[in-house]
């Protein structure tokens, strides 16, 4: 990506931000109104920016966090669902099912690690066993036709250490796993290359309209950015913004999902996603291989009030519950070494899933919310669906941009997926590919430098974590955190004591 047409800016004037990326005045962006401003750079917002960047349009992608994909999108099970169990006939089911067929080819273009590992639905008692036929029929109704009912012995063959209580199951061969962190990053990088401007660390406080139907994003800092069309895909932040432009009322709440992460050594015991059969009481706990070679058990489903900061915290009880639930499917998991835990929040909406409202409150505003946990899968199909709608409902004219690219260069593949030092001659050409910084995942100095030089110019510890997979291994940063902080400091010209985990307030040194 030698020729990047868009601008990347961060609204952070402190010493913790790279100097020449600081957003201090709207004139750094544009004089004329943007054709489209997208609020929210999660999987959906960044997918939309990517798809729209294929056309001759001036686009802004803005997010309050200091990296893309740092809200709901960062804490998921990282499964690409087939949609076999979705509510038949809903928009969500349609988009998930059609998107699941896109990811094979799309992941190649985006250079996002992806693996079709398949899933097995496991019934461990009579009540669950009796439901299998119904679930099988539902899969067919959802257009997922390659599912297969399994006998007890067939399940055991696919999953040798499965619970001895297994009664039967169903295989869903196209359920896949993906590097969910890389999705928003890849979409945004390509969008930026095609000329989309990206503004991070900037919270939209309100959207208003002036004459001649131009909308204004009013930032919390007081700055204003004009745009003709505004798309509000701000996840859990979307309802508050919608109030400011008089959009139809809807209620959101974070629904927490806690996960346990198991050591890489445990990955050899399960290589398929194990799904429980939902009962009247609970949806159950999944066992999920991750693309980076770990195992997950989770998630919980706990509702919080909007704005409750504890929604992303883990709890001892929650993790115990996950371990207990997962061991119902796979008992030997209890003895496996655990290395970490995390909690993600789904964007739950009382008015229903996939709330999509064109000309909401004001003409030219599109509100999208309630994507709950399916956005990782559905985002490419949802983006196409939204673009059709923008054309029809808001009169956006779509003229293909002949110079636009739709893929990332080969070098964007994360190092943990294909270690550069394994390539012949790579270390000779770049000796720092042989200098290992993260000892758990064997990530080199060179890979961290490449991440710092990548299009969005990330400079927080978490942003580097999501690009390189450092600090995620069994030592959870014991060995590498300070070395990475030093590297960021040196490479980006940020004083070491001003390096942050994820933006102002999370400095490694307290004031």
């Amino acid at each position, binding site marked *: 990506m030698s020729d990047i047409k868009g601008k990347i800016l961060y609204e952070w004037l402190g010493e913790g931000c790279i100097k020449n990326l600081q957003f201090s005045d709207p004139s750094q962006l544009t004089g004329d109104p943007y054709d489209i401003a997208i609020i929210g750079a999660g999987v959906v917002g960044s997918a939309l920016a990517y798809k729209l960047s294929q056309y001759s349009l001036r686009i802004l992608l803005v997010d309050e966090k200091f990296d893309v994909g740092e809200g709901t999108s960062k804490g998921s099970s990282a499964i690409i669902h087939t949609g076999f169990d979705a509510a038949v006939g809903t928009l969500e089911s349609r988009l998930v099912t059609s998107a699941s067929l896109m990811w094979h080819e799309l992941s190649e273009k985006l250079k996002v690690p992806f693996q079709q590992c398949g899933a097995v639905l496991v019934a461990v008692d009579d009540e669950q066993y009796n439901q299998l036929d119904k679930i099988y029929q539902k899969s067919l109704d959802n257009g997922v036709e390659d599912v297969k009912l399994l006998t007890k012995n067939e399940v055991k063959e696919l999953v040798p250490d499965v619970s001895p209580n297994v009664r039967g199951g169903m295989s869903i061969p196209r359920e896949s796993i993906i590097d969910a962190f890389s999705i928003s990053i890849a979409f945004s990088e390509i969008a930026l290359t095609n000329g989309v401007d990206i503004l991070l660390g900037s919270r939209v406080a309100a959207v208003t309209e002036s004459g001649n139907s131009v909308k204004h994003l009013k930032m919390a800092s007081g700055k204003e950015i004009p745009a003709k069309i505004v798309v509000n895909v701000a996840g859990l932040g979307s309802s508050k913004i919608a109030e400011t432009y008089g959009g139809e009322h809807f209620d959101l709440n974070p629904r927490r999902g806690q996960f346990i992460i198991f050591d890489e050594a445990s990955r050899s015991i399960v290589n398929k996603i194990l799904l429980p059969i939902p009962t009247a009481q609970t949806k159950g706990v999944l066992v999920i291989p991750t693309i980076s070679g770990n195992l997950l058990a989770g998630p919980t489903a706990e509702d919080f009030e909007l704005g409750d900061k504890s929604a992303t915290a883990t709890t001892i009880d929650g993790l115990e519950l996950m371990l207990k639930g997962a061991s119902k499917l796979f008992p030997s998991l209890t003895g496996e*070494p655990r290395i970490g835990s995390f909690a993600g929040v789904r964007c739950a909406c009382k008015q229903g899933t996939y709330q999509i409202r064109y000309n909401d409150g004001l003409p030219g505003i599109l509100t999208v919310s309630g994507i709950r946990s399916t956005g990782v899968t559905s985002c490419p199909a949802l983006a196409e669906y939204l673009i059709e709608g923008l054309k029809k409902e808001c009169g956006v004219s779509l003229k293909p941009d002949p110079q636009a690219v739709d893929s990332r260069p080969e070098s964007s593949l994360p190092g943990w997926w294909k270690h550069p030092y394994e390539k012949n001659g790579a*270390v000779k050409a770049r000796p720092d590919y*042989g200098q290992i910084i993260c000892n758990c995942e064997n990530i080199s100095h060179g890979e961290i430098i490449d991440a710092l030089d990548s299009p969005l110019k990330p400079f927080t510890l978490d942003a580097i974590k999501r690009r390189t997979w450092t600090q995620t291994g*069994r030592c959870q940063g014991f060995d590498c*955190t*300070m070395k990475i902080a030093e590297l960021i400091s040196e490479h980006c010209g940020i004083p*070491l004591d001003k390096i942050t985990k994820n933006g102002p*307030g999370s*400095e490694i040194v307290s004031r």
Partner: protein
Amino acid sequence: MNSEHKFNVAIIGAGPAGIGVALGLTKRGIKSVVLIERNDDIGGVPSIYKKKKSGIPTFINWIRGRVIFGEDYAGWLHQKLSKTDVRIWRASKVLRIDPERKSITLVNSEKGPLDITANAVVLACGAREKSPVEFGWLSGARSGRIFFSKNLLELIDQHDILPLKKPVVIGSDLNAYAIAAKLKQSGAEKVAIIDNRQRPKSPLFSRLYFRLWKSKPKFHAHVESVTFKGNGAPSAVVLDNGTSIPCDGIVLSGDLIPNSELALLARLKMDIPSRKPMVNSNFQLSEPAIFAAGNILGGFHGAEWCYFNGLKVAKKVAEYVKNG
């Protein structure tokens, strides 16, 4: 294979234990020994405890009968090693070992990925501090400023930065009291120590020793669960009895977890969840050509114990390679 890449004994890790093994082997006349260290310099954990004017010496050196700085201890080991013909490969990361072929795959900036073979391999990889989930009784926000004590030392000793003024230290072993003293000495206002034990794990005499350095952290005993509060950074920890301790950061200093990944990934016999490799009385793992020495064996041991253990393991390794 190039003869340059064939060794009699390969030692992985050049801390006190690994250096002890190397010196012990030299003493017994074993030639062709390579010491592989992933960091830029040898010396292991002691080397990060720098000699500073405001610092506190915490490394016991019975041989010379005094308490010295870690950096000095590492220097003492280094000096002994420099009189031998042990090959030292720095900044070289071992990716995997293959016990059957007795081969080691490593990577460094000069050579890229590279295979070497050895008649015996000694794992002297040391240990790391427990992560929050490994403690099992810590939960809450995953904010900034949650440090391992090693990370903290790197900031204080190498960069002269004091990251925390009101820290809460989790764990009460010798290391926890040492880091509490270090923080106090470096200017921290108030230090609290929390553990799920009834009494501090660190023995009384060492706690008294740190009092000499004006460090008297408040100990909160028998805490069954701790919740971290705060957004960007911790603002308080809340104990199970409701006590809220305001803080500006957290230091994790629990029991140590052996760096036994190479053995784990080579499917050698391990104890889970302690991650101790299983060894016989000769310090051999389930594959007889693979030995272990130092803190990788489990427990909490000082540098000198590791050094002496290295000498002991060297005796067994020497017998093994001599008998072919």
